């Protein structure tokens, strides 16, 4: 048997055969590692969790024609949209606007991809239904109040198409939309209906995008669009992105602070437990010194036990921590968290380091044991 295998046998036997004693220390490490792992998972998942939460407040990124351009060509809009990572897209709704008349009163009609608009603006409150068939529209509450229309009513819209010719078409009100904003003064219809009435233009007035990404990433996307598609001007909806950034920063700071406190408490707990372990094993330490163990060996053995505990506690922490993070995700954010595989080694290393640090003082005191005193006959 080599010295190394004897060393591992000694520390493993100490942990295995003194289960009840070491369980307390393991529990302290595992609880700390669990909370650490859980909170760090949440820390990294908060942007995703909160990002999705913020997406319910509507578009955070819009594409408008660059200065000097009258409209966004479909080709340019598609080129710009292709620069947005598809896995971060919640909804992308292109809009065309034209002034129309209903009962000789002017209103603004908006043609869009209704399904995308619904995804990009989940905060719209619709009385009735979203349009599902041709000739169905959503009208804003302000429009509904002005011309006294309810879901299910029909009305005639008149106006001038792209060729300057008059049109008159009948539409059915599918639903009335309330947003508390300017959208209540619009009539929303599918792009197909809009093109059928107003004619094909091959361009959009604006493209509203809802993207699940932090402000910094949106700024990067904007820079990329500006560089590669010069006739498109990307804009961040700052009221959304800035408040999102502020809330995220504060939440992450809070989680960071709690994590730091938990780590400190874990260290104190492990240090206290190891102190008790050292006190309880003073005779054993004295005996080892009497057998000729130098202080270095005593330190290596206790540190080995501590680090093994840290490692075991870390493994438990990774497993239980994900459960803990899941619990927070489901109960606080109403969404499940993703397992962050890259955080597992971080938790393990942190757990081992914290345990190692916590063991330093108790282990140091172990070397002060005087074998002549602790082995004295009774």
């Amino acid at each position, binding site marked *: 048997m080599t010295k190394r295998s*004897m060393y591992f*046998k000694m520390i493993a036997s100490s942990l295995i055969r003194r289960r009840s004693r070491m369980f307390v220390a393991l529990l302290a490490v595992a609880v700390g590692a669990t909370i650490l792992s859980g909170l760090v998972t949440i820390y990294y998942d908060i942007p995703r969790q909160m990002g999705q939460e913020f997406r319910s407040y509507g578009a955070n990124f819009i594409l408008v024609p660059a200065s000097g351009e009258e409209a966004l060509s479909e080709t340019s809009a598609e080129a710009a949209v292709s620069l947005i990572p598809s896995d971060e897209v919640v909804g992308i709704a292109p809009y065309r606007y034209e002034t129309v008349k209903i009962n000789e009163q002017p209103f603004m009609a908006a043609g869009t991809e209704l399904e995308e608009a619904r995804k990009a603006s989940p905060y719209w409150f619709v009385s009735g239904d979203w349009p599902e068939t041709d000739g169905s529209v959503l009208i804003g509450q302000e429009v509904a109040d002005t011309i006294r229309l309810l879901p299910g009513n029909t009305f005639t819209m008149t106006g001038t198409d792209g060729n300057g010719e008059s049109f008159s078409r009948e539409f059915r009100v599918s639903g009335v939309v309330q947003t508390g904003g300017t959208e209540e003064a619009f009539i929303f219809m599918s792009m197909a209906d809009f093109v059928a009435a107003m004619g094909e233009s091959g361009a959009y007035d604006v493209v509203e995008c809802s993207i699940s990404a932090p402000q910094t990433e949106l700024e990067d996307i904007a820079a990329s669009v500006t560089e590669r598609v010069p006739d498109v001007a990307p804009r961040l909806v700052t009221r959304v992105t800035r408040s999102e950034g502020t809330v995220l920063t504060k939440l992450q700071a809070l989680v960071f602070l709690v994590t730091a406190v938990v780590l400190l408490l874990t260290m104190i707990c492990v240090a206290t437990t190891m102190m008790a372990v050292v006190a309880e094993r003073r005779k054993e330490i004295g005996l080892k010194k009497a*057998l000729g163990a130098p202080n270095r060996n005593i330190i290596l053995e206790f540190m080995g036990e501590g680090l093994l505990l840290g490692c075991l506690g870390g493994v438990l922490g990774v497993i239980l921590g994900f459960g803990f993070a899941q619990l927070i995700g489901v109960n606080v954010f109403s969404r499940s968290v993703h397992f962050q595989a890259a955080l597992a080694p971080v938790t393990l290393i942190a757990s081992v380091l914290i345990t190692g640090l916590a063991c330093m003082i108790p282990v140091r005191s172990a070397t002060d044991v005087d074998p002549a005193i602790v082995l004295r006959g009774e």
Partner: protein
Amino acid sequence: MSLLEIRGISKIYGNVNALRNVDMTVEQGEWLAVMGPSGSGKTTMMNIIGCMDKPSEGTVLLDGIDISTESARNLTSIRRDKIGLIFQQFHLINYLTALENVMVAQYYHSMPDEKEALQALDRVGLLARAKHLPSQLSGGEQQRVCIARALINYPMLVLADEPTGNLDEANEEIVLDIFRKLHEEGITIVVVTHDPEVAQEAQRTVILEHGRIARIVVNESGKGQEGE
């Protein structure tokens, strides 16, 4: 040259003189007993001989090395290489088996050797109990493991503190029988004891009183005596 030569050592703890101007020698292969009432300085003397303490005055030469002036680190090294310790309370590591307890001494000394450790246990009649934990062994068996551990590194001097103090008569006889065999093999033994019957087994008995050597008795029935 004597294996152990103690010249005028005193040990003072605060106002207490545990040892006063003690002179003593132990020859190579000798079996010496140290007796005396509680507080007579037996434990202090054992600690000094065992390199676990240093005298306040005087010199102690162990195998020619003055252990009264060595650093703590060197004393640990000397203890590891030259002394085998046997305790009244056995002091086995409770989470290691009998075999592992013996191998611990090898581990600190040089290299653990399971075969040699098993031979040491066989020498004290415990081969069959090698894989047992101390809690699964009787007091006598634990003391025999302690002896095997003390002998595993071939020490120059075996230092035993009340080795039969916690044993019944049958186990005391087993342990003494092992000591007799060790003595026959030429191992130097110093036994600190309260028990006159144990002391009688030695060649000489040093009797301490109030930190001084009151007298030295040459035991005619001592096993070493038989050889002279």
